[in-house]
């Protein structure tokens, strides 16, 4: 099939770019939290962008080996994961007090939100560029 780089009608291209950008953001956040170039990440249960583009993240099969757990849901989380740093992908994940922050869509816009007290609990100091995404809660 011919290349269609400039033919902007192909929706699949947009979906791909969408996923890639979401993956870049997850990669950026994980790196800032763990301070590691290649972090071990456990995904519970499925984050589609990281399924397609994992970037520099190493996706591991169980929580014990993970530096951080990324959540698509907080339900049925394996008990061993509760000891780890939990990061959500929806606003509602922040209702779980063990979740330090979340990258989510709300009102048609992507948002990032961390809670200060939860970061402190894990001794996490984020880059100053994240200051506007930290709430004093």
């Amino acid at each position: 099939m011919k290349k269609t780089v400039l033919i902007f009608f192909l929706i699949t291209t947009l979906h791909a770019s969408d996923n890639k950008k979401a993956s870049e953001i997850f990669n950026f956040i994980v790196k800032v939290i763990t301070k590691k170039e290649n972090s071990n990440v456990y995904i519970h249960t499925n984050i589609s962008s990281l399924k397609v583009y994992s970037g520099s993240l190493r996706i591991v099969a169980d929580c014990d080996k993970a530096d951080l757990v990324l959540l698509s849901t907080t339900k049925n989380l394996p008990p061993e994961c509760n000891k780890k740093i939990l990061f959500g992908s929806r606003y509602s994940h922040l209702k779980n007090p063990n979740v330090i922050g979340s990258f989510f869509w709300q009102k048609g816009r992507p948002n990032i939100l961390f809670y200060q007290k939860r970061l402190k609990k894990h001794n996490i100091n984020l880059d100053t560029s994240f200051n506007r995404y930290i709430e004093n809660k």
Partner: protein
Amino acid sequence: MLMLFSLSGADGIDSLLQEYETNSELSNKTKDESAGNLIVYTRDDLERMQVESLKDILKSLRLFAYTENRMGQPDILNQDPINYYSSGIRVYLNETELLTGITGSGLILFGDMEMDFIDHVEIYQGFPSFDFGIEPATTVIRLYSKSAEHDEGGRVKVNISTHGANKENIYYTNSENGISYFIYANHTDDKKDTYSHSYTHFDTQLPIPPSLHTETLKRSTETKRFYGSVGTENHTVDLHITQIKGDALLGPILGSIPDNTYKENNYLNLSTNSKFMDSSLIFNLSYTKSEIEYLSEYDIEKSPYPVADANPMVYPITSYNQKVDEDIFTLSLKKQWNLDMHALTLGAQYRYKTFDMSDRTINEVHNPKPKNYDKEQIYSIFIQDLITLNDNSIITLSIMDQEFKRNSNVKNQNTLQLRLGYIYTNEEWVTKTFISSQEFATEPYVLMVNPNLEESNYKSILQEISYKTKQTLSKITLGIGNSENMLIPTSSGIGDSDLKVDLRTAIAEFTYNFSKKDKLELQANYWFIESPVTTADDPTEHISYIVRMLNSVSNFDIFNELVIHTGYTGVDDGYDYSAGIKYRVNKDFHLNIKGENIFNNGLDADYYNQVPNMPAEDKVIIPAIERRFTLGMEYLF
């Protein structure tokens, strides 16, 4: 307080988020540039423009102007006294066409629908692509609802406006275990101004002297709506229930202004959308049930004209009540193949409509319409090939054919549409050329008046050229065409024009993006159409200008829009200046104030009360869109 939305100008995570937001606009995923001359209102546009109802967009739609029919219903091509003229303008909510059985297009019910559950809008003009729906269209309006993907959680919104009009709605959306749902409920009490009109009433049947009357015209309505959607990635089920009731302005009959009017529309749609084979096979089902009622009441001294098909004939008329019951079932199957340079789409669709208009009372006595034509079946097939010539060019070829089968003495019709398009694009330039020949079948509501009407047809060439820089978008669109068998009002009701009518259009658009959140849009639109009634009539030359400015300063979104219309026959030129400010108090709580048609100088609409030579002419002239100020709040949870 947290500044979640101020992302401009920063590096790192800020710019990543900003790029992600732009890439992920849902309109980027649904719009189809090859389908026609496209206008997109993104989520961001709709929010910052404070678009409350679809008419807020339609009033600045190039080539047309928002207006209403004599029952106070949306009809942007209104040709009074024909009760509805916009059947070529098709409206879709997600994958489901919003329609009524007798009028075809659902613009009549949904043209002023509140937009609080809509994520973005695409408008395709110039005889757009055939893969949208079963019947051809001159303009396709696609509305896409909000979804769990981008709107997890809920929102409550309350508005209060001039005359005590108010609107309250709520939505909630979520997804769990691969199943997502969206539920929305709305109540709108659309109270509008009333209009006093004095005229001399001439009785056409009885030997009584002319009498002077002053009547008050009303067009307030109340709308209740529920919309719910549940589904997985590939399968969704939608339920849409609407009730609209209120005043019916002049009512459906000519000759007198009613003392009292009432209209009620109850609409229910249940639809499914399924994708198979990696979304290359799409199967849609839709069932619509609609009940419509119109009531007009008259003083015995000022009866409207006699009703032509009444049996027995009743005169004078003191009340007229018409109910319409409709059922519509639509099935659609579409398959796409990607074969080397060809993207081939084959579609087959079927629609079954019944419409029962027998429930009619005149002067409170049952006086049924002759029940001879109440069923229509439409078989439609289309094939479309999108040929990628190289990295910059594509050709689109489409053929669509419909067979309309009707019962009783109304003749069947076969309509054919052909469309050829060429699109060239590089980093800066885009050109689109569309040549089309389209036949349009006649809608049931006019066939009931005249069963011998012919298909109307349009031939057109449209050329669009646009040039983009980092901050600007410039676009010119030129079109020529002609039409045959256009509907025209005649002394016996509705007939076909026997004139070939020339059409011409020219559009110039310029958008300047000062920054990510500040833009200026300028538009000038020219529209020429010869009179389909007689060559002695002057053609209509309609020009509109649009200036729109969107700015964001700190937590304020500021909107300014000026729409100027000139050239409409019989009505004064109008300019509609609207402006609004939205204040984001925090990320969950927003306040807004908006003024619409602030100087009360927008375009007027004119309606016949008494038509010429029967025995005198009297017209009612009222604003198409009223001056209105709105104060609103929304809270996210």
